[in-house]
């Protein structure tokens, strides 16, 4: 198991490395270098003796005599001749022969020493000058450049997804193909490299072409189900290439691509076209179809003539006159792709080309000037040193280049500053933002800074920042900046709908251009499919944006979510956003999103701290409501406890000794939590205390306090109260309840009764009567006053509540305990019941027990609000 996990990780790592952007860009650079090399090699006119040699032989054996053009004398060399000397140089290997031949002048007649049928012959061989140096190669160069440029731009823009990678590779292969579309010659080392590279491109192109259209514009099901099919596509071309390579070294004729191979490769192209057409026909979304149509036609226009004229006529039947008809239309492929990318995705490609021309020219001149100075200075130094060693000469030149590099950089920066003030300014702005943004923890201050900064830097009349609706509607976005709408109409409303557009933005998390064409009112038609509904919604939203002048939406993205949008209008004067401005926006958006998240978290933290402080104060108030000590009477046990939860509720209890010897017992539960509840409880306590002093009737007291409470608060703030007067001499209890949970009385015979007389909760209504009840308590009777936190204690799964039934049962079981042991036992019981679940409400208990005659009557005085240890067992309690 362990080793499998390791192997997988390594494999994934290897795959990530192989498919990384760096590797692909390096491949691109390599292809450019190769194309440059092929161009130099191809345009260099070299002498040719009209033969083809083979590399792997120990001797320079003529394998083939190449027909020569008109006006060029035929070569006297024949197939099978072994060339032992060229131009008065003995040659023993094909490489030596190529070196000697390469030093001759095309058009010269050169003596060759050959062995023919074991006889040494001296032949005068007229050399012709050739490689592809005619006008048709210029076309190839242009085509290659188009493929390279568009392929690179599309790849850079489209990210590192599979279709982009394949398109990039396809363009590289095409570029190499064009640059190596050359004639054969004797083997110079440059020719070896060019031919091999070109052959590799020729063989791989069809497979790349096919694979690309199997994954783009949509991945074929077969490929999705059987991913191993992709590498299999390349198996045949690789085998062909191996055969070609082996032929170069060990074959008995010059390496070439035969008819059967061409036919098979041609079938690859046909299959690729079929895949593309299939994709096009399978799209239902008219917008997507529109985009694929252009690509489809472009590819068909490019590839079909290639198949017919280039492969069919030139390669198979050797008719070369119409070959160009097969090559030139290939430009349609990258052009159609480039158009689609620019049209539907990346408008700034066009801008980059347009706007950077002057800058590019000047930069190019600067580089050229630098290179000239480097080479001149380098050559002067080498002459001074007097070394003929080429390595030292290269090293010296490189040293000069290294020394002058900072000079070049300085000049380049001056150029940039002069030509692109805004670029320089934007760099400064970016630096400022980078410094300031982390310090802006308040959301509004942050948005204000960003908004003003961007508006100023980009010279925009206005811009907007929208955040998702705090109310929870994901489709509705609210303007967060500027708070007041800009004075210049048209302006965006405070709230806008962006659900459908947001979906597209969230997929790519990139700047999104409002497609004005898309935003135009469309002919009304019934949207049937889901795609059409979404399309219609998107168009609607974009119309709204476009009508307000919005041209560009830049998402503020954090952790893959869009948490905000910067909406920008078109730049004044119909100028386009330049690439560096887009880059600035993207960077600033990223920083802003991060900081918005930070600000949100900060505010949450502040609120949390505020709440905690409030709770603390409330708890403090609440704790002061409870009496510090409970009265003691002989034969009567009093105890009380307030079991706090995480949130402070308005529970309290009170025991008020009266001058007539009675004891007023109060248990109350004020609605709400936190400070408001605590304040109300405090108010209630004060009222009750005041009334208890002057009134003897619990019912009347509740009536009066109700009026007072109702007048002082609104109906949302109320309290449930149980008020009882207990005469310890007579053991008579008179009570009234204001909507409170009925206290329990359990007698010595385990009979339970509840004290339910009373009326409505206090403060809710300004009317109501409060009936009174009375009960005589005897020896062993237990009275338990409690708040609803007890009976509403939830089970761990939250499905069940403790309830009165359980309470009754518990009391019956534990009636015998003194109240000092009973209340902790109740706490323990509740903890066992709720398990790991936190207590959701405070629990206040006030217990009175008429001790049996054999027991002492001391009641335990406990500090009000304390939470005692709950690990006291019933045995310990007893």
């Amino acid at each position: 198991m362990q080793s499998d996990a390791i192997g997988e990780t390594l494999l994934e790592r290897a795959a990530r490395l192989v498919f990384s952007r760096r590797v692909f860009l390096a491949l691109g650079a390599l292809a450019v270098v190769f194309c440059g090399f092929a161009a130099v090699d191809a345009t260099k006119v070299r002498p040719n003796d009209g033969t083809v040699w083979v590399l792997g032989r120990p001797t320079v054996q003529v394998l083939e005599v190449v027909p020569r053009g008109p006006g060029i004398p035929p070569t006297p060399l024949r197939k099978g001749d072994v060339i032992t000397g060229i131009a008065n140089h003995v040659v023993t290997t094909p490489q030596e022969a190529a070196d000697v031949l390469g030093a001759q002048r095309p058009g010269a007649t050169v003596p060759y020493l050959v062995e023919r049928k074991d006889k040494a012959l001296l032949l005068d061989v007229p050399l012709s000058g050739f490689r592809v140096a005619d006008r048709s190669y210029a076309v190839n160069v242009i085509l290659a450049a188009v493929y390279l440029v568009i392929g690179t731009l599309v790849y850079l823009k489209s990210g590192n997804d599979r279709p982009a990678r394949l398109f990039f590779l396809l363009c590289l292969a095409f570029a190499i193909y064009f640059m190596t579309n050359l004639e054969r010659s004797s083997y110079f080392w440059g020719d070896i490299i060019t031919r091999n590279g070109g052959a590799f491109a020729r063989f791989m192109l069809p497979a790349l072409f096919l694979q690309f259209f199997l994954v783009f514009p949509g991945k074929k099901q077969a490929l999705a189900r059987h991913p191993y099919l992709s590498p299999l596509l390349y198996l045949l071309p690789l085998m062909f290439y191996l055969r070609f390579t082996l032929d170069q070294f060990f074959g008995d004729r010059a390496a070439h691509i035969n008819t059967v191979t061409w036919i098979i490769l041609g079938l690859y192209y046909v299959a690729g076209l079929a895949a593309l057409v299939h994709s096009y026909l399978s799209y239902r979304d008219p917008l997507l179809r529109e985009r694929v149509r252009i690509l489809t036609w472009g590819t068909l226009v490019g590839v079909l003539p290639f198949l017919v004229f280039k492969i069919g006529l030139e390669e198979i039947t050797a008719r070369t006159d119409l070959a160009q008809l097969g090559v030139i239309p290939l430009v349609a492929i990258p052009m159609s792709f480039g158009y689609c990318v620019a049209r539907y995705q990346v408008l700034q490609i066009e801008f980059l080309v347009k706007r950077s021309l002057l800058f590019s020219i000047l930069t190019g001149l600067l580089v050229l000037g630098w290179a000239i100075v480097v080479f001149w200075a380098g050559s002067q130094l080498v002459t001074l040193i007097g070394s003929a060693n080429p390595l030292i000469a290269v090293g010296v030149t490189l040293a000069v280049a290294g020394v002058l590099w900072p000079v070049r950089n300085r000049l380049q920066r001056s150029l940039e500053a002069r030509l692109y003030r805004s670029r320089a300014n934007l760099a400064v702005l970016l630096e400022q933002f980078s410094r300031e943004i982390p310090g802006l923890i308040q959301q509004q201050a942050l948005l204000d800074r960003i908004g003003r900064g961007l508006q100023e830097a980009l010279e925009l009349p206005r811009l907007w920042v929208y955040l998702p609706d705090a109310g929870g509607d994901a489709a509705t976005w609210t303007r967060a900046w500027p708070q007041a709408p800009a004075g210049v109409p048209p302006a965006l409303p405070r709230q806008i709908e962006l659900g459908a557009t947001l979906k597209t933005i969230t997929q790519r998390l990139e700047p999104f251009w409002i497609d004005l064409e898309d935003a135009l009112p469309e002919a009304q038609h019934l949207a049937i499919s889901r795609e059409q509904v979404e399309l219609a919604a998107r168009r609607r939203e974009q119309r709204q944006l476009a009508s307000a002048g919005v041209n560009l939406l830049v998402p503020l993205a954090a952790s893959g979510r869009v948490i905000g949008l910067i909406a920008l209008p078109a730049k004044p004067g119909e100028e386009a956003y330049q690439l560096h401005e887009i880059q600035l926006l993207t960077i600033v958006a990223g920083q802003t999103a991060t900081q918005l998240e930070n600000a949100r978290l900060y505010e949450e933290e502040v609120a949390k701290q505020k709440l905690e402080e409030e709770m603390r104060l409330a708890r403090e108030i609440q704790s002061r409501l409870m009496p510090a000590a409970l009265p003691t009477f002989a034969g009567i046990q009093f105890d009380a406890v307030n079991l706090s939860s995480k949130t402070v509720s308005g529970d309290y209890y009170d025991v008020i000794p009266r001058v007539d010897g009675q004891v007023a017992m109060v248990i109350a539960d004020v609605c709400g939590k936190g400070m408001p509840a605590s304040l109300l409880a405090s108010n209630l306590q004060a009222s009750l205390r005041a009334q208890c002093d002057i009134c003897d009737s619990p019912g009347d007291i509740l009536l009066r306090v109700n009026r007072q409470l109702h007048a002082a608060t609104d109906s949302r703030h109320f309290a449930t109260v149980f008020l009882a007067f207990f005469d310890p001499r007579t053991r008579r209890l008179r009570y009234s309840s204001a909507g409170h949970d009925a206290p329990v009385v359990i007698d010595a015979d385990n009979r339970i009764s509840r004290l339910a007389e009373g009326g409505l909760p206090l403060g809710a209504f300004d009317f109501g009567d409060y009936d009174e009840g009375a009960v005589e308590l005897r020896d062993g009777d237990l009275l338990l006053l409690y708040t609803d936190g007890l009976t509403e204690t939830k089970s761990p799964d939250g499905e069940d509540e403790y309830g009165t039934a359980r309470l009754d049962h518990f009391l019956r079981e534990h009636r015998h305990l003194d109240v000092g042991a009973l209340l902790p036992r109740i706490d323990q019981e509740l903890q066992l019941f709720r398990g790991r679940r936190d207590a959701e409400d405070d629990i206040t208990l006030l217990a009175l027990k008429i001790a049996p005659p054999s027991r002492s009557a001391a009641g335990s005085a406990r500090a009000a609000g304390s939470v005692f240890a709950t690990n006291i067992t019933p045995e310990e309690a007893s």
Partner: protein
Amino acid sequence: MKRIGPLILVAAVVFIAAGLVLRHRDPATAYTADKAAWDLYDQGEFYLQAFRYREAEQKLEQALALDGNLAMAHVALAELHYRLGRSEPSKRQYAMADSLAGLVTDDRARLLLEVRLSQSRSSRFFADADSLLAAAQAESPDELIVLVAQALAADRDRDLDLAERTWKHILEINPNYAGAYNFLGYLYLGRGRYDEAEAAIRKYAFVAPDLANPHDSLGEVLMTVGRYEEAEEEFKAALKKQPDFFYSLRNIGRIYIERGEVDRALALVDTLATVDAIKGTAIQKETELDLIHRLFIHRVQADFESYATRFLATYPTDDNVPSVRIRLLLAHGETDLALALLDSFRRVREQDPQFLESEALRARLRLSVSRWRGLAAEQAGDAAAAARYFQESLALARDFPPHESLFERIHLAYNLIPLRGYDEARIQVREALTVNPRIAEGTLVAASIEAAAGQTAEAHRLLDTVERILERADPDYPVLLDAKRLREELPDRDGI
């Protein structure tokens, strides 16, 4: 962007370091600080190898004018003088080079210089030639100077396999080292591998198209196998490229003699003698010696005596005087005196340190003695003795290339006729004619064999061949006269 500047500098350092490490050692700097002097020496060396002695001498002296301490230039100049037979100047230059060798501070360069010097007897390093070569082989086994020295030493020691391997190795290192093809060609020629010799020399001509020597060398190969007309074209081509390439003039003269155009050949040699550049040089002496030898073997009596006498008068103390005298005595029929002189000559030679050192030279001496004895016996009419001696010299020549034993074979065949050894005679003659089918004497002897064996038709046919070979010969060319005489003696083709 920020890192590009430092990266460029790092790359510069890497390149410079690589360049310093891998830089090709410039041989010039080891021998001289003056690049111009070295370039002049280089050119002089090139001309020397191309046998363009005048230009070579000019360049080498210019080099020494710029840097008198350029030891390599002194060595080259010494070799030039040696080739031109200027013994004293050659020795002086070797002495100068010997003393300058110590000034070369680079150990490797000094070793190579000493190896080169050790090739010459005039150098003090000659005695250490083997050890120097061994040291140089250990130090720089693929250095051209070392390999050439190794090849020449092998050739000198008659280790022809090693010599051949070494020349081929040189060509593997530098397939365009023209001189190697020349040496290889002569090596093949010396081993009787005439086709390979021709191929090698043709490559020599191919890689050194401006030189006359390749054509001359090719001409020699072609001449050896009897392709006289092609050889003549090559010699003329050599003269076209270098009008003062006297070797080719001499070789043309040889061809003329082989074709019986004696008067023409003599005229050519006489012309050569008037050329200032070779007057009094070793070339002139060699030319005259070669002429004397050919006139003798072709039995052009009068001219032989004339030139031989002149040679003796001109070079009275020359080492070759005894051999000229022996020929003269034999030509006059004084065989006993000739043999006596031969013995004396042999005894003197055997005391020579060079002969004591070299088995090859001893072998050559033995062969010469055997030949002379054979000729003497033939002169005396003792066919059996002559045949025996020629058989002996054939045996002695078994390690020599076939074309160097043609003389023995032909004379053996000739002496076997009176002994009725027709079959053996035919074998010998056929062997000779296989190598060179244009040897008139050989063909004549073949005709004589057939005539003696009664094969009249064959004899006539062979006589026709002789007449064809000698179609341009002087009317009094001995072989032609002999051929006519034989034909007269023979019955006609129909046996009448």
